[in-house]
Every structure is written in structure tokens, then in C-alpha cells.
């Protein structure tokens, strides 16, 4: 089966800091891929490259076989790539509902009733519906993160990129988030998820990728990866043989 998203030899550096070093990987349709890596490894940068907020120095990015390397961020979103931001970027002077509505009309190209129902549906799933008429600027950090997720979903993506959305959740909230993401996944959306809350990640993804210094250093079945020496040393900070 051909990949829905594919990176081939993607490179990006800021001066001496290499954030993507010859990165190649692919995502199968309907797959959920987890991404781990120390702080500053280049995970968020990788998302920026895929979504077009950063331009690549070299390499190709393909969506469903089509080369999207030169496309604008907006075009990529309309083509089916949506993301959440690690540092939330709400439209602070618009209400939660309007935030979602922007995504539904612009990203998903819906209009009228269809857009409205879709937004309400998504907000209901992410547990933000009660805040629909609240200005996004007044949300707490975690509500903002939920808004990030909602907006991305409203854009009806084929591939959704999630950047640390489980941090700071209570155990209970974390479980409900996991359920939400599983539901999304069940509808056939492919997922790439960066997360430091490892157990949440493991509850959803079927494959793990580990990044350090912009390089992919391990990839494979989640449990095996978690047991690997690299992950234990550079990520969990426990002695490999402990």
C-alpha cells in the first residue's frame, strides 16, 4: 500500500543547528505513528517542515504520492494535513466556536449548516462545547491545547499531526483524551503524535519513531522501542541495563 505521507531525505538547518538531518520516513494510510525524542531533538521542526511553516533545505515531501514540497502551508492544509501547535496559537479575539468554524470553512472547505454541525460535533467530542461562546483568549493553557486539537479536527484532515497535547492532564482527563484520539483514528485519519507522556502515546500508536539531533535513530514496534538501549539512555534517563 502506498504511503499517505512520505519524507525523503529532508534536511533543514539553522546555521550550525541541524533540525532535520536527512530524514526519511513514511506513514501508511490509517496508521498512527508516535514520535519520541529529547527536548530540542527536532520533533516540532519536523512538523513545521511537513506543514509548510518551515521550508526545507533539501529533500522531498509527498502527500498521497503527490509532491507537496513547494506548497504553501495553507494549500497543504486544504489538501488534508492539519496540526496542533505545541505552543497554542488560538485566534484570541474569536470565540471557541468561531475558531473551529475557521478551520471547517477554510481548511475543510465546508460552508453553511454543514460547517456549523461539523464544528459542534468536534467540539462535543473534545469536550469544549460548553465553552463555545467564550473568547479563546480567556482559555487556560489546557483548554487552549484542546482547542488546538478541535481546530485540527475541524479541518477534516487525512493526516493529523499532534504536538504534545497530553502534557499536564490528570489521569482521568488523559484517558478521555486517549479515547478521543482513538475515535479519530477509527474514522480512518492517519496520525503522527509527538508526546512526552509516553503511556498515552503507547495507548494509541502502532509504531514509534525516535528522533535525536534531527535524525531518526530508531523506529519500530512501540514496546520494543521502549525497551531499546537508546531510548532508555537518551530519553528516559535510566541506565540501559537497569
Amino acid at each position, binding site marked *: 500500500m502506498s504511503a499517505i505521507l512520505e519524507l525523503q531525505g529532508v534536511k533543514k538547518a*539553522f546555521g550550525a*543547528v541541524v533540525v532535520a538531518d536527512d530524514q526519511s520516513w513514511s506513514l501508511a494510510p490509517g496508521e498512527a505513528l508516535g514520535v519520541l*525524542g*529529547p*527536548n*530540542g*531533538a*527536532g520533533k*516540532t521542526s519536523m512538523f513545521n517542515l511537513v506543514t509548510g511553516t518551515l521550508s526545507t533545505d533539501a529533500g522531498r515531501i509527498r502527500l498521497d504520492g503527490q509532491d507537496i514540497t513547494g506548497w504553501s502551508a495553507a494549500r497543504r492544509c486544504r489538501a488534508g494535513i492539519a496540526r496542533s501547535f*505545541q*505552543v497554542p496559537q488560538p485566534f484570541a479575539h474569536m470565540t471557541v466556536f468561531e475558531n473551529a468554524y475557521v478551520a471547517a470553512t477554510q481548511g475543510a472547505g465546508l460552508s453553511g449548516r454543514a460547517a456549523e454541525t461539523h464544528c459542534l460535533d468536534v467540539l462535543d467530542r473534545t469536550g469544549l462545547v460548553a465553552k463555545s461562546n467564550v473568547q479563546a483568549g*480567556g482559555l*487556560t*493553557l*489546557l*483548554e487552549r491545547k484542546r482547542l488546538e486539537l478541535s481546530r485540527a479536527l475541524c479541518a477534516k484532515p487525512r493526516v493529523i499531526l499532534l504536538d*504534545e497535547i497530553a*502534557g*499536564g*492532564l*490528570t489521569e*482521568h*482527563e488523559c484517558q478521555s483524551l486517549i479515547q478521543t484520539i482513538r475515535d479519530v483514528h477509527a474514522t480512518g485519519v492517519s496520525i503522527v503524535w509527538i508526546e*512526552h507522556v*509516553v503511556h498515552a502515546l503507547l495507548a494509541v500508536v502502532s509504531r514509534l519513531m525516535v528522533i535525536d539531533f534531527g535524525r531518526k535513530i530508531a523506529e519500530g514496534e512501540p514496546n520494543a522501542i521502549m525497551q531499546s538501549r537508546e531510548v532508555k539512555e*537518551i*530519553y*528516559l*534517563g535510566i541506565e540501559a541495563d537497569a
Partner: protein
Amino acid sequence: MPDALLTLQALNAHYGDFQALYGVDLRVDPGEVVAVIGANGAGKTTMLRSIAGLLKNAPGAIRWKGQAIGALRADQVAGRGIALVPEGRLLFPSLSVEENLVIGGQLGRKGPWSLQRVYDLFPILKERRHQQSTSLSGGQQQMVAIGRALMANPELVLMDEISLGLAPVIIRQIYEALPGIVGEGLTAVIVEQDIAKALSVSQRVYCLQEGRVSLEGQSQTVPREDITRAYFGV
């Protein structure tokens, strides 16, 4: 009982018409680590921001070494020796990493913390010290935010969810360093979602629920079910 370092008495806080805190009482003694836990939106951040002087308060609600500081501006509160590691890092984008740290110490209070010690704690920052702070990764930024607060050589440091977004290895490293930091005469209030972590590093714990204190106790002895109850109000 020793004289309290910081006390909150019936602290209220508002955002416009919305009341976020209702009569919060809290006490911090010198040299201890107090953990504050609570669900999202419980008002933890609001409480820390109130203490730091970023939100308006009734003048008498906050006392520092017995003196009312509720009416002071944030910069005056900082001058008394209270530092905040804000939720979401909030570094100065146009300052370099090193300048971000240096400005933390610009009040010139004496104490154990210096640029060198921060670099010892987070060696990666030394490597990146001339870089612009916004170009750091999320985790690196969190390190700068912590270092910046320590640079002030405060008597009390308020830490708001510092482990958010950090790789486990870094969280571990920071919490391992915490007892040492406190041991040098620093007092800390930490807000943390990871309850186990919070309880393990603190002496006492408060739980907030919908703007009210729903539980207060000794971290080591407080029963887990009490916490669950305090958390969700069941």
C-alpha cells in the same frame, strides 16, 4: 510553629466578571516545598500569579513575612525575593539565552545562584547561550525559564507546571536537583499535574478545586482517596 514565610488569607481573584479564586487560605514555611495540585482550571496558575503581583488583590490577602504585599506591583514583589517560573515559559524573544538568564538576576540579590551554576545545572544552555531564546526547543526554553528564576536568588520560587513538555530525562534531572536547591535556603511552591511526583518532592500539599482549597495535608501521609475526592469534588 515557625513564623510563616508566606500566608494567603481569604484570597479572591477575578478575571473581569469571572471569579477564579474564592477565599483561598495557604501557608508556606521557610525551607519547605509546598505542592499545589488540582484539575485544569482549578485556579492554580491564578493563585501563583496573584502572589507574584500580576493580578490585583485585596491588600491584606497576601502576607510576606507578616507584611501585606497584596497591593504591590509585580516588580516590587520580585524585589522582596519572590520569583515565578511562569506557565508556558514566556522567555524574552529578543534577548539571547544568556541575557534571559542575566536579566533574571538584574535586581542584584546576593545568593548561591550565578550564571555558572545555571550552566552547570543545564549544560545545553551554555552551548546555546548566544542563540535567540525563541529558537530553542520547548524543553530548552523551560530550562531557561527555571534558570532565570533562580538567577534572582529568590527566597521563594513559584514553579508553575515546570515539567510540562519536558522529556522524562529532564524532568527527572530537575526534580533530582530540587532538594539540593531547596537545601540552600530556598523555599518552593510547585504546581504539578503529576500527583505522584508532586507528593514525592514536597513536604505539604494543597489541592485546589474550582477556586477553593479542597484539601491540605502532609505529602507523605495524606491518603490517596482523600486526594481523589478533593480533586473531583465527589
